[in-house]
């Protein structure tokens, strides 16, 4: 109960505030948690892949949010685009990863005639 209050109080407090970096971070966190839950709950492999996309993009939102000019220190010499560049890398990697993961899924379907990840327990110890 106390833990719930401790989390809930600042989150709900944000609603009354003007939009800031913290709001982006909350959105990113919600996306991340949704992605994690999707990965952990979905039995369909494609659903799992979607969860992964959510996780990655939640992280991307965070990167971009942390790149906010409000967070730059005085006299910073950077272009202030670090977060955006990293987000671009992540998108790139996500594309590559999706290609590989889809190929694995396709192969898995060929072998098992299903995309249920619960059936993918061949590596069981």
């Amino acid at each position, binding site marked *: 109960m106390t833990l719930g209050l401790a989390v809930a109080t600042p989150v709900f407090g944000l609603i009354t505030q003007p939009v800031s970096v913290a709001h982006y971070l909350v959105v990113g966190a919600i996306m991340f948690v949704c992605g*994690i839950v999707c*990965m*952990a*709950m*979905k*039995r369909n492999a494609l659903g*799992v892949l979607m969860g992964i996309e959510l996780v990655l993009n939640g992280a991307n939102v965070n990167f971009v949010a942390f790149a906010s000019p409000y967070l730059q220190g005085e006299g910073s010499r950077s272009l202030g685009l670090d977060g955006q560049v990293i987000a671009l890398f992540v998108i790139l990697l996500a594309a590559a990863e999706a290609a590989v993961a889809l190929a694995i899924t396709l192969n898995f379907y060929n072998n098992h005639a299903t995309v249920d*990840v*619960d059936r*993918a*327990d*061949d*590596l*069981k*110890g």
Partner: protein
Amino acid sequence: MDLSTQLPQLLGLAWLMPLASFVLILFFGPKMGHHGRNAAWVATAAIVTSLVLSLVAFVSWLGAHPVSAGHHGGDHGAAHAEDHADAAGHVAGEHGSDAWHAAGGHAAAGHGPIAYSGDWYTLYEGGRLRLSIGWYIDSLTILMFVVVTFIATCIHVYASGYMHDELHDVTDHEVTLTDGHHLHRPGRFPRFFQALSLFCFSMLGIVIAGNLAMVFIFWELVGICSWFLIGFYYERKSASNAANKAFIVNRVGDFGMLIGLMALWGALGTLQFADSSVPGADGHAVTKPGLFSLVRPADHGHALRVPDGMVEFAAAEKVAHTPPAEVAGKVDAWRAEGFGRWLLFIAGVGIFCGCVGKSAQFPLFVWLPDAMEGPTPVSALVHSATMVAAGVYLVGRFFPVLTPDVLLVIAYVGAITLFIAATIALVANDIKRVLAYSTVSQLGYMMLALGVGGWAAGLFHLVTHAFFKSLLFLCSGSVIHACHTNDMRKMGGLARVMPYTAGTMLVGCLAIIGAGIPFVIGLSGYYSKDSILAQALSFAQANPRHTILFYAVAGGAALTAFYMFRLWFMTFAGEPRDHHVAEHAHESPQVMVMPLLVLAVLAVVAGWTLPGGFGIANLLEQSRPAGTVETAVGGFAFGQTLTIPAEHLSHGEPFHSTATWTAFATALGGVLLAAAMYVWRVISPAAVAAMFRPVYSFLANRWYFDELYHALFVVPAHGLAAVASGIDQGLIDPFINFLAWTTRQVAGIDAWIDRTFVDGLVNATANATWTLGNELKRLQTGSLRQYVTFIVVGTVALFVIASLFFRQALAG
């Protein structure tokens, strides 16, 4: 080609051929045809090549030094001087490699022998010791080469027939295993010819040797070969015992020989027979005098003289108190006092000791009859051309160094041997044993002949004996081959079924007893035995105290005739005594008969002197050691002066005719007695044996020599061995066992610690790891969703832990 380079090459090659055959058969023997059948061809080819090379050497020798009668004059001076001139131009042979004595007819006492010597290879050189493989070639060497290779050839041919049993698996009926069966073993055909080849090589090595060290090397090789061959059927207890006996008895003699070698080397610093040329301090070749010229210096008329080295060695105390510069001048005075003469005596007797062992002289003759355990071709080879001949040959070769006292020892040893062996042969019933004792007896003859100064007579008898004794042995082998028994009491009447064997054996018997028409013609033994008798008579006349030596020779001749014809009559004459044996008997195959015929011819003619003077006796005269042409007087060891009469005196009257008649009469008497007992049966052998029962059993038990030696040497040796073994088992073994027990206990404790603690720790670790792994395995469910959950939970947990426990650090 120059004779001094040609002869060593020819004879060296002839010497090495059997070695090549030995090596070939050693490595490839079993692959030579079925069961190594072709090994016989390899060995025979090698020995035939040796024979041909020896004959070539013989012919070239005759071409350069024609043999003629009346050799005692100075007529060889010219030929000799010419040889010497040859030597000057001969690079490898250096100065001393030719005739070892400076120039023929130079000294008053007469000419030296024609001899070539030199070294092929120096084995070792250090201090005063120089060991080399070299040659000393004179007519005796060449003659021995021809005889040895010839007889060996005959024996090789004969053995390739005789040993055919070894070509397939053999069941040895004389060996019973513990399970009651007879021994069954693979044939050993190649092994036999391998040993035979090595035997020939060793014997030829002794003959060609240029120094005593080399003689000794090959002497021992001959010993080991005899061990191989006598013990050929080594599964038989008797054969392995006989082989050991031959080897050990020979070692006893060789010990004496070593003493002799040390006496010579220690005092004289050389073992070379002839003068040799060695690199001096300044690099120029220096002539180093050999034994012969040290003992018989040319400037002393080749008369025997104690060498300076021995005098100084014996008078070492006086030398120590004399200024070095004056030593040389006083040597003659010391020599006159008698210093060194004992050393020379010991050297001679020592070398003779080796010959006693090898040539089966009293008291070391006991091995030879036992050596009959070997296959018969081996007996033939051992008894004629190799092994026993080596001893007589060495005495002949070493003759110039032997003092009159040593010669007297040799003569008496020979006389005793000849008498003992002849008496034992009278009653022996084993055909090979009769021949064995006859060999011992004949060797006694040779030694006696050498001992009384009959250098040529002794060696002449060695050669003629080689022919007829190998003939007799091969004949006996043929008989044994036919009858499958050695016992003469089971034979008889074999002349009808084995005409060739009977005829050739009769020739052999006639030759060994010296049959002939007095003064006209005779078989080979007639000439050699007569010359021995004549020399013994001459010696007896010069030294009346030693007349007994002549009686020994004459009595021995009668005994020889008796036992040889007893053998022949019992085997071939009369009616068969055992029908079982007689039915089986058959003439031997041609490959065995041919050597018999060839040897029979030689047993007849070997002693003849052709009208031109060519003959073995005259050939030997070419090698007569310098200084033995004249009658020699000397002797100190036995408190009396000995006269060694010159040998040519014995060819004259009255010795010659007396000796001839004595030999004829004694031989005839022996033959007639044998005929009376075994053919006409006028006298019953059994009655005679009964009448002289003690004597008969004494002889039948071989004078109890084996028992005597058993009691004197074997039993104490066994006792000593038992004591040693008692100490070993009662004292040393318990101590060692205690040490072992202690070590074992300590090791037990160590093992317990190891198992309990070290292993326990390792096992516990392994177990823990194993259990942990098993537990953790359950987490690996393979379910992706679960993994994701774990990752999330884990990450959150890490954050929680970090925020709870590392708050300070995070804040910091």
